[in-house]
């Protein structure tokens, strides 16, 4: 998971900063919405231990509670019971130590690309000069130096997501939380984005919690896949992905990849069949 090529000084700093932090613990977390007769349990007593620097994909169909679980780590939602810990400290509110990347339309449309990326450092109290230099570093990392002065509305969907990733990383968070960040992109762009995400991650080594409902995406990206199923939302499988890194998209035809995919699909199929039988019995 570390960068293979020569490490620049900066890269080493990233790694040192990040590798020792970013442990996420989810302890007996239950999350529900509404109350009384309308009570809906979105996540049922879930426990997870995610070590620093791990790339974890949470895979599951729409509505199974993936976003809800991620939002509790982000601090947007309080669990009904249980605790979310980041490096042994309980999560009680959103904060810059957990960078968030949303599916789409999450850049501030009135701020330029540069201002969007510099937002976190600016809030953190860095001087304008520092903010500019951080923003420039990240702009070149995502290959959008030429777009610095553009507004988000002038960018393609893929570019916007790259800026979203850069904006989250500009705070040097210990965890990157990504909620179907490529879900709204076309298949072609999605592949490019997946590869570039892995490149970026290899430099930063932050813990990543990545939500997707695309099996290929999960296998291609992850060290570990958590398969989630609905009714009520819970983790039904925890698979390790042993594919070597760095990964390229042609890995999708390798035997290991296909094996893993078969495994994932059979877990998902079992669950959907159960759900299907449930719904027909009613």
């Amino acid at each position, binding site marked *: 998971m570390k960068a293979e090529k020569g490490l620049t000084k900066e890269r080493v700093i990233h790694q040192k900063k990040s590798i020792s932090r970013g442990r996420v613990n989810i302890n007996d977390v239950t999350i529900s919405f509404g109350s009384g007769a309308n009570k809906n349990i979105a996540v049922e007593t879930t426990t997870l231990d995610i070590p620093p620097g791990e790339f974890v994909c949470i895979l599951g169909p729409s509505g199974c509670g993936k976003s809800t679980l991620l939002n509790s780590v982000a*601090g947007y939602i309080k669990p009904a019971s249980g605790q979310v810990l980041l490096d042994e400290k309980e999560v009680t509110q959103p904060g810059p130590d957990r960078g968030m990347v949303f599916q789409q339309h999450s850049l501030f449309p009135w701020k330029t690309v540069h201002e969007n990326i510099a937002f976190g450092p600016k809030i953190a109290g860095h001087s304008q000069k520092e903010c500019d230099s951080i923003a420039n570093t990240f702009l070149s990392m995502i290959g959008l130096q030429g777009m610095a002065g553009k507004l988000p509305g002038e960018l*393609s969907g893929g570019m916007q997501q790259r800026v979203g990733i850069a904006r989250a990383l500009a705070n040097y968070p210990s965890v990157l939380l990504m909620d179907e960040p490529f879900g709204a992109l076309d298949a072609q762009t999605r592949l490019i984005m997946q590869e570039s995400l892995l490149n970026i991650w290899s430099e930063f080594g932050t813990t990543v919690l990545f939500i997707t409902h695309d099996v290929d995406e999960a296998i291609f990206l992850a060290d570990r896949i958590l398969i989630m199923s609905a009714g009520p939302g819970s983790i039904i499988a925890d698979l390790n992905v042993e594919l070597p890194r760095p990964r390229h998209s042609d890995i999708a035809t390798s035997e290991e990849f296909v094996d893993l995919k078969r495994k994932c699909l059979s877990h998902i199929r079992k669950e959907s069949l159960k759900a299907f039988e449930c719904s027909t019995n009613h």
Partner: protein
Amino acid sequence: MNVRALEKCTDDRPDEVENILLPEEQNFTVENHDSTKSSTEDTLELKSDGVDHSVGSTKKTLKPPVLEKVFALYKKTDSLFIGVLSISVGLVLWHLATIYSFNFYINFQNIPTPLSVGSAFITQLADTEFYIHILVSLKRILVAYSIAVFLGVGTGLVIGRSRMMRAAVLPYIEIIRPIPAVAWIPLAILMWPTEESSIVYITFLGALFPIILSTVHGVEQTPEVLVRAALSLGAKRSKVFLHVVLPAALPSIASGLAIGMGVSWFSLLAGEVISGQYGIGYFTWNAYSLINYPDIVVGMLVIGALGSLSTFLVRLIMRPSLRWTLPRN
């Protein structure tokens, strides 16, 4: 702050737009991990753009170039042309109706002709008192509108973000808002020490409500995902307000400001007609009392022009801060 954020979370689902989930088996056969197709989406976009242009130009060159130019010029000017034509037709109809004393339900017998209105206008332009009327009205608008902007936007932002404040303030708004400016006049005269201040008060009230309501609306429609993004980037409540809620509400605030300007003229005129010794509304009403009919229409047209002009100014001032909402390519 987080209590609010959490409250919002429970009734607002910004990420609800989910892709429809295909059976995963289908994904498998269709997806094709081919790294050689590395052309980025940017170049793809440029290409498709270029295609569009070439298609357009080949179509156009089928026409002779001179005709082409005339056509383009016509296209540019035709709405102006139609506008002028339409106004001219209106003036001619007005003229005909007055000189033939049209009287069928609507009575044009005492209505001044367009020409007499024009000459009355030119006469007024030479009279300093006419300018005093205009300036007095403008001053009232400026004072009343400024206070309304300040209080209206402030109140709107507060009740847009705080449930308690909204519950406390909204009943007042609902009760007072439907009361027309004219109905306020007697009470305003009783309440305020001078006639001037009561007119300004009425004008202020007219502008206030549209501004409050559009500010509230703007604040309410702030995308929750942007608030969350800001919170995750380390922003606290006041920063979220400044960097997210306020700019997100600006388009709606801007339209409230423009509407408020229109309504403030409306209210001003009501106030001026009934009391005061100066002001363009007083001028108009006074012309009626003096049986100086052309001046009535002069006053009306000046009011219309000033109303349009000031609304246009408000739009112009707001435009730079709304650059991001404009469509672009």
